[in-house]
């Protein structure tokens, strides 16, 4: 390490701990407490990246989160590579491996830099104007090439191996920012007894004070900083979160915070989360987010070695790093003189201070003059030189009209520091929908009233000195605690805004008239120059939102933190409007980029979503069942024997049900207990069926419509008692049917004495289906007569099975003699196993949802959502018989009375039989009239369900076909990739149309 670039002492680094790291393979050393940027600068490395569009060499511009240039990839191992991290925020650790981006083959020799030579031909809007013709080339040539060349950094190629965590928190006062204002606010609020959360993106508290050689002097109170931090850390009601970025401000004082837990560690514990995302709901918010220094806009202002004055001061005072050996300061305000004075004190020669203002007489400039620093007032910068590092700067005197007239003077230097004044950081305030107001004196947008319960304090609202910011923070913290409902002491009142540093908002330095200004960068990260902005204005763009999109200024990952106000001022001047009239673009979350993993939190892998399993799941898994997802449920799809295909397994399962007996887990069916003296009235009003006549102990197939008359759900409903119904729904419909029922009950019929309780998970449902079902159950069931006379099809009886209480349904979704045993869920697996054992002599076969689908299709039973699609009426589905015609009303009745709902040309459910019996149609295939029809043709329907039926020895399909019931026997065609297949229209009931089997 070059010893001359570290100060002999001072700074907040730990000089006792040397840290080794590499940058682009080069081994370097820094100190504990360094950022990657400060350590690189200490090694004399300014060139850290290539720009986005022109591939220009770029250096470290800032010392904070606003950094546009120094984006690096940090590589921990083969899969842990994080691109686009700001080197100014990356904390150094032993063994850190960093790589520059957007360059090939190397940072110093980058082929893409040819774009820089072409820059006059790549102005704003270049892509929009150039790559329009020929149209076909866009997809094949332009887009792939542009995409390959574009982008900063590489997206990781492997799944993120780290874990991320989530935390909800509440507090009375959330303070964002741990500088003088934020610390004082947190302290004042905590003293009032408030629950406080203080967050700051830096590893240490102190904010701007960390960059002061003597924070005590800046505060006018030597011991305050250490005392306040210690007090907050020890306070039981205060949570201090460092390395935590408040990235988003959401409605009702919900803020998103991203806490980085392990990125700064050399060897993180792999069991610990990398980041924790906090969602904090605060009664009151204090935003103490500080201010960001603006660069100046002049030709060649982007060379490595050109940085913000405050950044150089931060590197010097906080990290003990001299950013150069010979400095030139370019400024439009007094404040930046501090930097020159600090550098001078540290021994760095200051070759010149260039100040655009004709007269400069403040306290700081006078101090500079006293120190013998050459101050050039009324002077502008017209250019710089140096390929990979700035070597010199060219300046010219301004005349009385502010025009550069004097001779060009060249000053050798390796460090150019610029300061265009400070922009209050109103990002979060603006995200909270707070409006910003232009302050002419400060030449800044300041926060106005917040629509949230929030207030700003310190530099982010234009109170710039540390001492005043501290007083402002104390005031804000006290008021926040008061507004959060706590008893507070005296309110000290707010300090005055300012000081105004005299800097104009526009960072554009005057240039000779008549010559276009080249390479004067406004947005470093997206390579937008002042010339691009002027071009956009000349081409007629007036709205700043349009100019932003056309030139891409402010649209990079830094969201224009350093560039927005400069861009705005340049546009305002060109179109002759005051800055506030041009307006501001919208600030959006996140304040700085947030890792995707942070948003995912725990919701990854097996915790991505709840996986719901039935009480019989483990048994099915043990039998080798293949499961399918139905909503969040896992359902057994089929039970293959070793080596058996799905087709073979489903065929075997179907045949077993038809010939002997099948066992099916129906536990996922939605179940709702409808109870109360008005239960029957409720059911009559909701479902299309008539329920008054349903006797206790009997079941009915119920259909539920939406108010538009289309089928919403279906299921068997049992009357358990006069005032109690056991309603079943589809698996996927359980939650929405209950919600719809509650909606009607609470908003339309609050007078009904009836209540709804979900019992989906109370019951395990074991379906025993097939000709032998009765024999299987006879030895197990107690207290119920299973005979057809005592327990006919569509009836229900309470009883016991193997001593376990049950509701026994005699129902069938297969067309066979069938029972559905409902037992309390904890008994589900034991009863299932008992039934399975008892059924083995009868050839009982567990079957899955796939066989269930085939069996029901053979019977023409619909599945809501498969054979219906939200446009199907009961009549369309052939279920008009279910409508309780004499009922005065039910949900959907009025809609069903519209003439269009009775058109004979509506799509109706029919069966289709292919001419070739072994061809299984594709579900979703269209149905057409003409054998030779080719696209585009007009379909008259579509296939909704299609299977191979082993029972029938051929394929079957259900379809919705226009006027289908009038087409029985007709031949229609289904277009397929192999040509149009002939199909015959039939009844949708393919098997046992009289129903003698299920009534057995």
């Amino acid at each position, binding site marked *: 390490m070059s010893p001359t670039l570290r100060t002999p002492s001072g700074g907040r680094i730990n000089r006792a701990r040397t840290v080794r790291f590499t940058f682009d393979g080069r081994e370097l050393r820094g100190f504990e407490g360094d950022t990657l940027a400060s350590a690189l600068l200490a090694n004399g490395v300014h060139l850290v990246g290539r720009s986005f569009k022109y591939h220009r060499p770029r250096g470290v511009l800032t010392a904070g989160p606003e950094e546009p240039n120094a984006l690096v990839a940090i590589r921990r191992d083969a899969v842990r590579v994080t691109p686009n991290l700001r080197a100014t925020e990356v904390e150094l650790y032993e063994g850190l491996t960093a790589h520059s981006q957007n360059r090939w083959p190397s940072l110093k020799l980058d082929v893409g830099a040819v774009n820089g030579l072409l820059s006059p031909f790549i102005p704003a809007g270049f892509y929009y104007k150039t790559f329009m013709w020929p149209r076909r080339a866009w997809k094949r040539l332009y887009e792939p090439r542009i995409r390959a060349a574009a982008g900063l950094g590489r997206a990781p190629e492997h799944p993120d191996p780290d874990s991320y965590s989530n935390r909800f928190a509440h507090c009375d006062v959330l303070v964002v920012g741990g500088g003088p204002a934020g610390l004082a606010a947190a302290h004042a609020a905590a003293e009032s007894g408030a629950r406080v959360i203080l967050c700051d993106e830096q590893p240490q508290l102190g904010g701007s004070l960390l960059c002061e050689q003597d924070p005590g002097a800046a505060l006018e109170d030597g011991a305050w900083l250490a005392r306040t931090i210690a007090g907050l850390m020890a306070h039981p009601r205060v949570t201090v979160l460092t390395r935590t970025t408040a990235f988003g401000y959401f409605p009702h004082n919900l803020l998103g915070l991203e806490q980085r837990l392990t990125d700064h560690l050399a060897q993180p514990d792999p069991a610990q989360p990398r980041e924790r995302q906090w969602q904090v709901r605060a009664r009151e918010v204090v935003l103490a987010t500080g201010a960001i220094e603006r660069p100046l806009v002049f030709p060649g202002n982007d060379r490595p070695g050109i940085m913000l004055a405050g950044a150089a001061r931060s590197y010097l005072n906080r990290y003990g790093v001299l950013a150069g050996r010979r400095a030139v300061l370019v400024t439009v305000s007094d404040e930046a003189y501090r930097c020159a004075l600090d550098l001078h004190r540290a021994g760095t020669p200051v070759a010149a201070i260039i100040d655009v203002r004709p007269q400069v007489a403040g306290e700081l400039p006078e101090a500079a003059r006293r120190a013998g620093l050459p101050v050039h007032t009324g002077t502008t910068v017209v250019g710089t030189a140096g390929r990979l590092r700035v070597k010199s700067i060219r300046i010219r005197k301004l005349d009385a009209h502010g025009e550069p007239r004097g001779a060009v003077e060249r000053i050798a230097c390796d460090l150019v520091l610029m300061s265009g004044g400070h922009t209050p950081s109103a990002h979060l305030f603006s995200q909270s929908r707070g409006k910003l107001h232009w302050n002419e004196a400060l030449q800044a947008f300041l926060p106005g009233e917040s629509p949230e319960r929030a207030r700003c304090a310190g530099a982010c609202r234009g109170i710039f000195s540390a001492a005043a910011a501290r007083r402002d923070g104390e005031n804000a913290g006290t008021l926040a605690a008061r507004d959060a409902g706590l008893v507070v002491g005296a309110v000290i009142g707010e300090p005055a805004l300012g000081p105004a540093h005299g800097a104009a908002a526009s960072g554009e330095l005057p240039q000779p008239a008549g010559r276009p200004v080249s390479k004067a960068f406004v947005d470093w990260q997206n390579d937008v120059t002042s010339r691009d902005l002027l071009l956009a204005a000349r081409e007629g763009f007036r709205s700043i939102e349009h100019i932003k999109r056309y030139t891409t200024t402010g649209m990079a990952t830094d969201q224009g933190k350093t560039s927005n106000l400069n861009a705005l001022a340049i546009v305002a001047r060109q179109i002759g409007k005051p800055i506030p009239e041009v307006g501001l673009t919208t600030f959006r979350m996140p304040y700085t980029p947030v890792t995707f993993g942070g948003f995912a939190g725990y919701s990854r892998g*097996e915790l991505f979503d709840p996986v719901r399993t039935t009480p019989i799941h483990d048994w099915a898994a043990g039998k080798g069942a293949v499961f399918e997802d139905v909503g969040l449920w896992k359902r057994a799809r089929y039970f293959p024997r070793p080596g058996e295909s799905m087709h073979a397994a489903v065929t075997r399962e179907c045949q077993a049900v038809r010939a002997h007996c099948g066992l099916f887990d129906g536990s996922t069916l939605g179940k709702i207990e409808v109870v109360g003296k008005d239960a029957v009235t409720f059911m009559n009003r909701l479902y299309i069926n008539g329920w008054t006549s349903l006797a206790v102990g009997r079941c009915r197939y119920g259909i539920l419509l939406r108010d538009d008359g289309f089928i919403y759900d279906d299921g068997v409903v049992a009357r358990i008692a006069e005032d109690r119904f056991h309603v079943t729904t589809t698996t996927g419909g359980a939650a929405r049917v209950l919600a719809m029922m509650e909606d009607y009950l609470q908003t339309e019929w609050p007078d009904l004495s009836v209540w709804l309780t979900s019992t989906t998970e*109370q019951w395990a449902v074991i379906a025993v289906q097939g000709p032998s079902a009765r024999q299987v159950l006879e030895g197990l069931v107690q207290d119920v007569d299973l005979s057809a006379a005592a327990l006919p099809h569509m009836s229900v009886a309470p009883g016991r099975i193997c001593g376990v209480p049950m509701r026994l349904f005699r129902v069938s979704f297969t067309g066979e003699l069938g029972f559905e045993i409902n037992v309390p869920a904890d008994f589900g697996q034991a009863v299932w196993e008992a039934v399975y054992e008892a059924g083995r002599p009868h050839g009982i076969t567990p079957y899955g949802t796939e066989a269930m689908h085939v069996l029901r299709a053979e019977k023409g039973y619909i599945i809501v959502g498969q054979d219906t699609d939200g446009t199907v009426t009961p009549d369309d589905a052939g279920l008009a018989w279910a409508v309780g015609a004499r009922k005065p009303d039910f949900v959907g009745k009025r809609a069903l009375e519209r003439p269009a709902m009775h058109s004979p040309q509506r799509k109706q459910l029919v069966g289709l039989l292919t001419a070739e019996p072994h061809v299984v149609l594709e579900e979703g295939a269209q149905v057409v009239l003409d054998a030779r029809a080719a696209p585009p043709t007009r379909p008259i329907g579509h296939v909704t369900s299609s299977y191979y039926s082993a029972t029938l020895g051929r394929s079957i399909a259900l379809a919705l076909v226009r006027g289908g019931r009038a087409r029985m026997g007709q031949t229609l065609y289904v277009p397929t990739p192999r040509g149009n297949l002939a199909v015959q229209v039939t009844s949708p009931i393919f098997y046992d149309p009289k129903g003698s089997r299920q009534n057995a």
Partner: protein
Amino acid sequence: MRDLSAARQGPYVAASPLVRPLSPMTRLLLRGGADARAAALAALGLPFTDTACRAVCASGRAGLWLGPDERLLLAPQSQLMELSERLSAALAGRAHSLVDVTHRQCALEVSGPQAGVLLNCGCPLDLDPSAFPVGMCTRTVLAKAEIVLWRTGEHSFHLEVWRSFAAYVSKVLAQAARELTA
């Protein structure tokens, strides 16, 4: 014939330091008017209250306020038949709905000084004792699952979870617990 009346098997619950499954219990969901609610609580020997989001408990039984007309009644496992009968008698003639939901859900206990922090890994409520005091209960969420949360002590919570969500809820808590215990 086999007697399976003792062959209960609850849902899978992932083990973790601050979380333990509670043994099976009787659960009845009561809906009804003020008279029915008062009669039911009296029949269970519980003090009457209509305070929102508050649980009352006595001698191993509890009544949790889940809505203006809704109470979740908890009791030892063995008392299902006895309590059902006693409640039926007490509620006769009063408009109400009483549904056995014993098996619909299961209970977890989260306890320890970090219990509230652990729950806040997935529960968005303010669990500070000033905002969520002992005896408070409510429906809420734990990550992507609905739960009923009841604070039974300064450092202990009773969670009611629908059985098919128990694995998910307990796994989320187990993952979150790793951060706290390390």
